[in-house]
């Protein structure tokens, strides 16, 4: 499979146990096989890259790190060549994901109500309409004689962008910009030539926040909410806090869900039995969605060691990175029966796709809604489809893994 991997400046990896690089295209293409191999022979892999990082692959080790916020800090959660300024603690760049207790709890509590399941359920009609509009366009293109569409480009990438833009009160036409910011920050961190100051996420969001503040911040969008909400001390949030949280909502809400939708379609394209079951048995869908999330969990988090410590018997030094591979957790046979099989009606599924412990994905209800609606609407329109060229499917590098190129051929369902 590696012959189709794009060119990279990253040095080749000799041994994934001692020199892993999750930003290398080989990792993106073969991650599940790499985790399975490591779990057998070296369950806590190491690399000197990024200034020293560890990759635990067993569920028990991942859970232990996620639950221990004393030994492992969230001051930065994207592994790259630079350690974040300790002065940023306890808030971190993007609260609450980069915050440690007790600050974390206060920052998170402000955001829980707008992301609670009952409030998120109100977004369903908008998400569904977004999917239908995209499918209308794909169908129109198909009538022009095409039978192939790149679902990553024509469908999956747009759904979370449009929903989060609406929630934040940002123009949905800016979606291309959002994706550029995200690609730089999440998929290829620290691997860029100089970026013009006007082209950064900081410049973009600073301008939008300034505009919103000047116009009175009286909308029902999340930027207005953050500009007007009272912080734990009874005062408005600091500018840095507002900025960091909006950056978080924008970054975390997009390519994660885009990846989950894409991986689910990638699976369905190759499994006619699962497609048939989805169509004929609506009761299976609630289980199928969680199995997509288990088997294709897109997000790997990270921590920094707050002190010299050990993980799974390995000596971890203060300021070493630790990747929290929730995707590898989800395929550990010690945590799941038939861990390496996709079981569409799996009834016992304590997957960790949304993380574990106090940093459980704030947007999980939104992500689950978007994934469910996106797969339902796709399957209602195109119940039969296949990969048109499996070799050209390309998976993203870094800590969010999903198909970025997903050409599918629509079969007779298109008529």
């Amino acid at each position, binding site marked *: 499979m590696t012959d189709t991997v794009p060119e990279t400046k990253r040095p080749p990896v000799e041994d994934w146990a001692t020199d892993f690089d999750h930003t290398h295209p080989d990792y993106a293409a073969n991650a599940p096989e790499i985790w399975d191999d490591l779990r057998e022979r070296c369950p806590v892999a190491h690399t000197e890259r990024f200034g020293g990082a560890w990759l635990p692959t067993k569920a028990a080790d991942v859970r232990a790190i996620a639950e221990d916020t004393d030994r492992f800090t969230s001051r930065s959660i994207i592994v790259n060549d630079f350690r974040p300024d300790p002065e940023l603690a306890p808030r971190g760049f993007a609260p609450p994901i980069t915050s440690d207790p007790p600050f974390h709890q206060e920052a998170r509590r402000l955001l*829980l109500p707008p992301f*609670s*399941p009952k409030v998120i359920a109100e977004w369903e009609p908008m998400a569904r309409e977004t999917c239908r509009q995209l499918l209308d366009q794909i169908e129109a293109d198909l009538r022009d004689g095409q039978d192939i569409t790149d679902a990553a480009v024509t469908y999956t990438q747009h759904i979370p962008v449009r929903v989060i833009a609406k929630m934040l009160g940002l123009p949905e036409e800016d979606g291309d910009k959002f994706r550029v910011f995200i690609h730089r920050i999440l998929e290829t961190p620290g691997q860029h030539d100089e970026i013009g100051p006007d082209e950064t996420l900081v410049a973009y969001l600073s301008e939008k926040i300034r505009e919103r503040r000047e116009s009175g911040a009286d909308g029902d969008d999340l930027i207005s909410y953050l500009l007007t909400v009272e912080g734990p001390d009874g005062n408005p949030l600091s500018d840095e806090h507002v900025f960091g949280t909006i950056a978080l909502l924008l970054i975390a809400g997009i390519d994660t869900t885009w990846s989950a939708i894409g991986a689910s379609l990638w699976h369905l394209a190759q499994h006619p039995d699962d497609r048939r079951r989805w169509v004929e048995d609506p009761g299976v869908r*609630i289980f199928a969605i969680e199995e997509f999330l288990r088997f294709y969990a897109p997000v790997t988090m990270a921590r920094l060691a707050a002190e010299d410590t050990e993980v799974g018997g390995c000596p971890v030094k203060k300021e070493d990175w630790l990747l929290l591979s929730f995707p590898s957790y989800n395929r550990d046979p010690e945590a799941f029966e038939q861990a390496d099989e996709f079981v569409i009606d799996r*009834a*016992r599924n304590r997957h960790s796709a*949304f993380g*574990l412990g106090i940093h459980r994905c704030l947007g999980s209800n939104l992500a*689950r809604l978007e994934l469910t609606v996106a797969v339902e609407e796709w399957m209602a329109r195109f119940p039969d489809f296949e990969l048109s060229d499996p070799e050209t499917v390309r998976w993203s590098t870094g800590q969010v893994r999903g198909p970025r190129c997903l050409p599918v051929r629509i079969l007779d369902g298109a008529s």
Partner: protein
Amino acid sequence: MRITYDRDVCQGHNRCYQLAPELFDVDDEGYAVLLVTGEVPAELEKKAQLCADNCPEFAIEVTE
């Protein structure tokens, strides 16, 4: 069948509320609220088991 729920362990994954709204509600912050006082109605035993088997934080237990 009896069911117990530990609010201190719950992180608001909302799997239980999604699988069995007859047994669990959620509060304004998205944390689960157990709706029955220990004993599970016979017709909801299967759903109670599902809630326990799908809680990522092991916050729910059922016992025969």
